């Protein structure tokens, strides 16, 4: 499928398996963040409160956007 480039941001190679631009990486960060929260709620929330996950997610998000 052709994915038209939505934002004219230069694509580059990071640790992610595909070339991404800043918009893609932001999207990936959010998608993974949500997923992490869901897993956390299911398996870890009895032991560790959810805001720990939020902090982790934000850190992970920054890492993905910077290095992905």
């Amino acid at each position, binding site marked *: 499928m052709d994915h038209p480039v939505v934002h004219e941001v230069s694509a580059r190679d990071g640790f992610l*398996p595909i070339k991404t631009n800043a918009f893609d990486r932001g999207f990936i960060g959010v998608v993974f963040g*949500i997923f992490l929260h*869901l897993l956390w709620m*299911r398996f870890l929330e009895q032991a560790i409160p959810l805001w720990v996950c939020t902090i982790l997610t934000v850190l992970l998000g920054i890492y993905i956007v910077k290095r992905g």
Partner: protein
Amino acid sequence: MRSPVTGWLFLAPTILVLTVFGFVPFIYVAFVGFFDWNPFAANPDLVFAGVNNYRRLVFDNQFLRSIGLTLQFTFWVVLSQLIIGYLLAQLFMRDFPLKGLFRTIHTLPLLVAPIAVGAAWRLLCVPGLGPLPYYLNRWFGIDFRLGSFEHQAFITTVVMDIWHWTPLVTLTLLAGLSAMPKEPFESAQVDGANRWQIFWHIMLPLLKPVLITTTFIRLMDALRTVDEVWMLTGGGPGTATRYIGLHIWRVVFPQTDYGYGAAMSLMTLYLTIMLCWFLYVGLVARKPRAS
């Protein structure tokens, strides 16, 4: 002459309609998902609930089960359709009499209302009336009762979907095959490659773009199948064929638990996007994006 204002004027009604009926509902469902809202409860107003709805959702076994069922259904449907569709498309590459007529008839299921497809298959399957239970019992000794056996119900929904949508796969792959250059195949034959090698090393790479497009389109349609299955089995027996669309529709509305339903809807959208994205990366991985 060509002022952009006129252009935007022409686009305005389209944008307006799609915003109000496409974008606003999306925002709205995201909003309601964070609230408790049951108009028939003691407090009929929206009460902010944070992520409680999602907390409930990840432990909702019925919901998780219907997601699992949807994935199974989608997997079998898309896989079978790709295989059958490919073989049929290959047959269409040859010349034989009445090809146009066969093709036209093959297209018919694509235009039939899904609800009528469901009705037709239901009539085929009703015990004591339909030919399917009768002949399956007579020829193979199978006791075919959709209302009682979960596996039969599941398989029948898969078969029905294959009947309904294989033509689309056939026709897209046919278009892909017709547009293919002949030289690689001829030179491969000269080099003495066998049929399997030709298929694997030449046919598949050349067909890949069309194959991926078809897979994605079928995938997204299969994930949201509701009408036919509702008509054929009503989601039963039990919850054996209650795919996610049916689940949202049949569970949320009668319960009027709108906040929770909104969370469920949004989660379905999220999972759909995730699945498609992962497949996109998996299938088109390491390929630089066009820019």
